[in-house]
């Protein structure tokens, strides 16, 4: 019976149904064949969304969009240019550095590629960088965003597993920094080899002015993290504080917000969130069906029957998630696979927080993995070159990402050091 669920889901995905609707149709087909009362559809949709911590998703999206409306992207890029622009291949480093700072604001890789790419790719091309390299740097750097807090995939992982959002936010910070630093070094070495240009060194005054310009946005990330880690706010409250903070900064400091564009930003953020919540609702129904059919237990016992070696199990999970991550949106993949794979990981004594980081890292690296990584598509369409060229130029970055993934998988310290230090 479960095959109906899987087959309908795969067929709908291949035929280009939206992922959430593919999930809904697969569940509906299963329920119709099984003869289950269909009232379960709205019931599970409602209970899937009726989770307090999920309220933080639109909150963080709104805060990020409000900050962006205030011209934050340009300010962060300008600040990074003052800091890194004088090094060989300066703009590529600015691209990565800005993504790391922007990470705290946006939270999704695809939107990072689009917003950073639309500014950085034309600017890099203009200075003589290869288009393939410019697109590859943009796509690779945008994967840092969803792992550095505040991270929407981490909120979803927390919702699915009951783990602390604060702990998950902290757990993603070191792997995110490691990934960002790895990408910075890779871009530097490639730039040095290809003799890409560098800018003149900025004066201390220019750096200070750039810092003042971005200070308010960086402070928002600090407030969110300090509020959650310090036990002052719940993640939902922190997200709403971030919205109010972004409103005040956008209106009175950046002076770019008015009543009309606030409503536009709100509506836009809510549409993005609603498309995610329909997915969450159907994933809840999907999860319910999987549990009634005891699928997590079956998969878990199948894998554990094959091997009980923790590292082999993690290798298998990594491979599966990378493959899924290449063609499926991060949140959708997380919603479908995380609860099943968590059970397997727990059975071989992997810490759930460590596993959540591994899962998110895998899925976001998948976004830049050829041949179909979504961020590669976005970057190639901005740069107007083939995805093959971007993929080729992006291979060194992908190798570094895999290296970080291996380190994070093998050494739980990277994920657990900060949560243990601040929250235990």
């Amino acid at each position, binding site marked *: 019976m479960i095959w109906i669920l899987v087959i309908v889901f795969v067929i709908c995905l291949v035929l*280009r149904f939206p*992922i959430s609707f593919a999930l809904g149709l697969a569940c509906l087909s299963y329920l119709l064949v099984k003869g289950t009362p269909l009232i379960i559809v709205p019931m599970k949709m409602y209970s899937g969304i009726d989770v307090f911590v999920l309220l933080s998703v639109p909150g963080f999206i*709104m805060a990020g969009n409000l900050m962006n409306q205030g011209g934050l992207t340009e300010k962060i890029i300008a600040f990074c240019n003052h800091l890194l622009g004088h090094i060989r291949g300066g703009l590529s480093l600015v691209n990565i550095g800005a993504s790391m700072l922007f990470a705290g604001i946006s939270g999704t890789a695809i939107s990072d590629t689009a917003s950073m790419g639309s500014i950085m790719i034309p600017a890099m091309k203009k200075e003589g960088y290869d288009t393939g390299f410019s697109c590859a740097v943009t796509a690779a750097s945008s994967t840092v965003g969803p792992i550095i807090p505040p991270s929407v995939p981490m909120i979803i992982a927390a919702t699915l597993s009951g783990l602390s959002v604060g702990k998950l936010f902290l757990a993603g910070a070191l792997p995110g920094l490691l990934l960002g630093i790895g990408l910075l070094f890779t871009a530097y070495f490639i730039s040095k080899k290809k003799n890409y240009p560098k800018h003149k060194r900025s004066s201390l005054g220019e750096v200070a002015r750039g810092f003042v310009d971005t200070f308010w946005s960086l402070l928002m990330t600090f407030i969110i993290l300090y509020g959650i880690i310090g036990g002052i706010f719940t993640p939902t409250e922190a997200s709403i504080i971030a919205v109010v903070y972004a409103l005040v900064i956008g209106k009175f400091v950046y002076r770019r917000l008015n009543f009309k564009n606030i409503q536009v930003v*709100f*509506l836009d953020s809510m549409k993005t969130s*609603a498309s995610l919540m*329909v997915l969450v609702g159907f994933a809840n129904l999907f999860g319910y069906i999987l549990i009634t059919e005891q699928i997590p237990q079956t998969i878990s016992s199948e894998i554990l029957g094959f091997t009980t070696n923790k590292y082999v199990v993690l290798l298998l999970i990594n491979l599966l998630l990378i493959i899924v991550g290449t063609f499926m949106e991060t949140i959708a993949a997380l919603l479908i696979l995380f609860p099943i794979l968590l059970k397997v990981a727990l059975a071989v004594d992997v810490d759930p927080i460590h596993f959540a980081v591994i899962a998110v890292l895998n899925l976001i690296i998948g976004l830049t993995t050829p041949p179909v990584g979504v961020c590669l598509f976005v970057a190639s369409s901005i740069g107007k070159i083939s995805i093959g060229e971007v993929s080729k130029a992006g291979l060194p970055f992908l190798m570094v990402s895999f290296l970080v993934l291996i380190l994070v998988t093998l050494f739980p310290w990277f994920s657990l050091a900060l949560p243990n230090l601040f929250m235990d």
Partner: protein
Amino acid sequence: MLYKTIGRILKYGALISTWGLILTVLLQIFCRFTPIATPSWTEEASRIFFIYAMSFTAGLAMKNDYYVHLDMFYNRFPQRFQRFLVKAIPVITFFLFGVMAIYAIQFIVLGVPEQSPSMGFNMGIAFFSMFIMSVSICYYLWIKIKKNFKNPNL
């Protein structure tokens, strides 16, 4: 006229719910840091505002194509089949949300005798959000279906 009115209802419904959500959570935070006792209903109210905000915007997200899909296989299909899919996908999706809308009514009826734990209102009101979500998505799918079938290029 109807198209504009429905769009406006959903837009203002979404904005009111969003502001409601923000203000309720702010009240919760404010009360925690002042001698005023935090009302017991703030968490429940914020969840209701959130669910309503999502329900009002789910249809608008449909209208503006916010739902992500995979393109990797679609581009390899013959053009004729692609044109068929453009017409068929909204019809099949309409069926999904049509079923959900019908059973959402049953869900509302089920909620009528129940009361919300802290606010004491009828749970049918909360469950009504699922009806709004499914009907609004159905409405914009219906518009899309009509447009697709009238389009001579499809």
